[in-house]
């Protein structure tokens, strides 16, 4: 296809910053758009090429802490327009847990600001000898001293930068102490408690001595066919408003989906380091009961840029030890953190999540490593001698909060936990690896055993046990419209996960939030809508079928990176050992587990759908050529393949 006019939607430039040499330059975005459209897919392609050019030969791997590891920010290609829920940024790099593909995604307000400043992507390479932050004020880009910010928590960092630059409209991404201290699961935080969690993107940023990226944009974004574009926006806005699920999300994620009597509790909760997937009813009520649980602390609901769902609660604690806490954000994931630790005090749970964002640590990783440590304590493998007297008993809020800080600052036992459970269990030994729950080396906090499409989506995720790469829950909420399936059965799971993963790639290309996309029950946006929006917005001629190929292409870029730099194979796509060997112990789904034989069949079918080799899981030359990825085939395949 060819653009019907100059490409719309995009800002037009990719900013390159080498923190080692202090060189700053820009390239045109257009060169990548027709092939990969934008967002995550362009990030993935740049990552592959940046890493590949630093390899001596095909056997060479580049480790995550190599200064040449690029940290790439990619704003969705329709962010900055009036498309509902378009605000998201993909952050891609070498994964700090496994040297494979690292990727995290974040909403808020930063992405649109970057596009108004004139940039679609930022590629950061090199390592500064001293702490710095990046200041992007339209086309004026500076590397500034960040020494005075080092050690600060994330909201304090944002306040200090806004004061220094005398502009409270600046949007900022920053790391906290966890990123500075190279905690493997460090996150990047922005604005209203938004967190780019997973793959240690904050750890990579800390390794570069980059404390923050501050952005102010005074420019504009235009689309190629404004009348067409606005007509589609009108149509989908109406559909969004009609969605019954939207009304649920508008009350907040907990009230929309996770009140104490919600059926989701029965099949999407992981209890005490995954010892069970059933949480006692009394405990659910304590945590999320409407009168005294999390919902009772909600003061207001807010939204990310352009989002009609507005699912972000502002929580306030007025009394007690956490008096004065005011914070946005509390997600379904937050309940997972609590259940994983047996923590059902709502105030401690709110505060734990709040401090994760302040310290700049992925709540998944923090909760998962702590849960493993608590189970070690329960089994007598760790004692109070190891914890400086802290008693790691399930639900001990004081211990949880103390240990959370020890991880971020790498103090005492926290220094071990900061490595994540795979490495920590390897160092501790004593059989503790049997209940160290990770995927591809990265901590994973989700339940795997009951909802088969959830477990399978987590296991094939190229970034390691994160559910936003194809995991599906129930047919009313996720998966292709018009297809019914039984969530607790294996039938059709590969096909449904295959579709969802592809569409999620498309959503990360565009930059829209999944709560208004295909993954949240709103079903207000379809792949056809995406094709029409991209056609009118960018000025390309796309239909649903072509767009799905773009999604597949993006997934293949991530897969290729894992092959090139992490040597992942079929065995890395099986769920954590605990979930294969230990069934759910209680509740209505007692006995469910991840059946390895069923996984064999599902993986066969999943690889077949992609055209990958069933035995090795690896991409074939023909599967890459079919997607016009001949250059990637040359990059990762040996001549004989």
């Amino acid at each position, binding site marked *: 296809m060819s653009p019907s006019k100059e490409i719309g939607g995009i800002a037009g430039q990719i900013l390159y910053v080498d923190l080692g040499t202090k060189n700053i330059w820009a390239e045109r975005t257009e060169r990548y758009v027709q092939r990969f459209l934008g967002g995550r897919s362009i990030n993935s392609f740049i990552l592959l090429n940046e890493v590949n050019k630093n390899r001596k030969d095909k056997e060479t791997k580049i480790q995550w802490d190599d200064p040449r590891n690029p940290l790439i920010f990619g704003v969705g290609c329709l962010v*900055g*327009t*009036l498309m*509902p829920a378009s605000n998201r940024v993909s952050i891609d790099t070498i994964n700090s847990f496994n040297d494979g593909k690292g990727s995290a995604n974040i909403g808020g*307000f930063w992405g*649109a600001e970057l596009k*108004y400043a004139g940039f679609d992507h930022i590629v950061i390479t090199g390592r500064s000898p001293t702490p710095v932050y990046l200041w992007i004020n339209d086309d004026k880009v500076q590397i500034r001293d960040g020494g005075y910010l080092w050690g600060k928590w994330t*909201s304090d960092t*944002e306040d200090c930068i806004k004061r220094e630059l005398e502009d*409270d*409209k600046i949007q900022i991404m920053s790391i906290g102490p966890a990123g500075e201290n190279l905690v493997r699961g460090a996150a990047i935080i922005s*604005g*209203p*408690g938004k967190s780019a969690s997973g793959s240690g993107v904050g750890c990579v940023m800390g390794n570069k001595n980059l404390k923050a990226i501050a952005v102010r*944009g*005074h*420019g*504009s*974004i*235009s*689309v190629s066919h*404004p009348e067409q574009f*606005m007509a589609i*926006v009108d149509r989908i*806005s109406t559909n*969004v*408003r009609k969605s019954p699920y939207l009304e649920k999300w508008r009350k907040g994620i907990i009230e929309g989906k996770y009140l104490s009597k919600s059926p989701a509790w029965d099949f999407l909760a992981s209890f005490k380091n995954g010892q069970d997937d059933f949480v006692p009813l009394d405990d659910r009520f304590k945590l999320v009961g409407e009168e005294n649980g999390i919902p009772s602390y909600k*003061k*207001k*609901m*807010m*939204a*990310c*840029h*352009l*989002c*009609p769902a*507005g699912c*972000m609660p*502002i929580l306030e604690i007025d009394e007690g030890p956490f008096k004065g806490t*005011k*914070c*946005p954000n509390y997600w379904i994931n937050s309940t997972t953190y609590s259940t994983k630790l047996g923590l059902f005090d709502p105030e401690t749970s709110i505060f734990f999540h709040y401090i994760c964002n302040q310290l700049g640590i992925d709540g998944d990783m923090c909760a998962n490593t702590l849960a493993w440590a608590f189970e070690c304590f329960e089994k007598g493998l760790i004692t109070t001698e190891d914890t400086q007297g802290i008693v790691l008993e399930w639900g001990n809020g004081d211990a949880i909060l103390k240990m959370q800080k020890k991880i971020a600052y790498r103090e005492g036992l926290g220094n071990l936990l900061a490595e994540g459970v795979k490495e920590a269990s390897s160092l501790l030994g004593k059989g503790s690896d049997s209940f160290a729950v990770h995927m591809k080396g990265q901590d994973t906090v989700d339940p795997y055993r009951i909802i088969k499409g959830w477990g399978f989506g987590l296991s094939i995720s190229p970034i390691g046990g994160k559910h936003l790469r194809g995991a599906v829950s129930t047919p009313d909420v996720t998966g292709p419209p018009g297809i019914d399936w039984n969530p607790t059965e294996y039938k059709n799971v590969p096909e449904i996960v295959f579709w969802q993963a592809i569409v999620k790639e498309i959503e990360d290309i565009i930059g829209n939030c999944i709560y208004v996309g295909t993954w949240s029950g709103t079903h207000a946006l379809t792949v056809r809508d995406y094709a029409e929006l991209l056609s009118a917005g960018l000025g390309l001629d796309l239909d649903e079928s072509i767009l799905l190929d773009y999604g597949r292409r993006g997934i293949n870029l991530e897969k290729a990176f894992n092959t090139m730099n992490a040597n992942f194979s079929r065995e890395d796509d099986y769920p954590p050992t605990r979930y294969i060997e230990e069934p759910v112990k209680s509740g209505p789904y007692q006995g469910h587990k991840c059946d390895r034989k069923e996984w064999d069949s599902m993986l066969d079918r999943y690889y077949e759908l992609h055209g990958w080799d069933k035995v090795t899981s690896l991409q074939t030359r023909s599967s890459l050529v079919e997607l016009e990825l001949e250059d990637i085939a040359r990059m990762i395949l040996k001549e004989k393949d």
Partner: protein
Amino acid sequence: MIAEKSDPCTRNRKGNNWEIILDELKCRGCNSCMLACSFHHHGVFSKEASSIQISWDYSSGEINWGINSTCDLCEGEIEPLCIKYCPYDALLVKNAKPL
């Protein structure tokens, strides 16, 4: 007096008898009004090219909102675009002075 939704609000725009007001209890700070406004004025999406400026405090959720003199109540449109594109029905046209 709150304008009826059926009233296209075009008759008195030039006389400045109408003004846009924000219900801060409904507003979630999503910026849709700001970008819709810039599209009316310039056919592009921009925070700076908008008659509306909106932001919110990331701890408390407190809304800061203002509308400047470049607002023409979307002359030529059926209704002001900020109202049309607000997902939360937080904006209204109100009669500022008795006619």
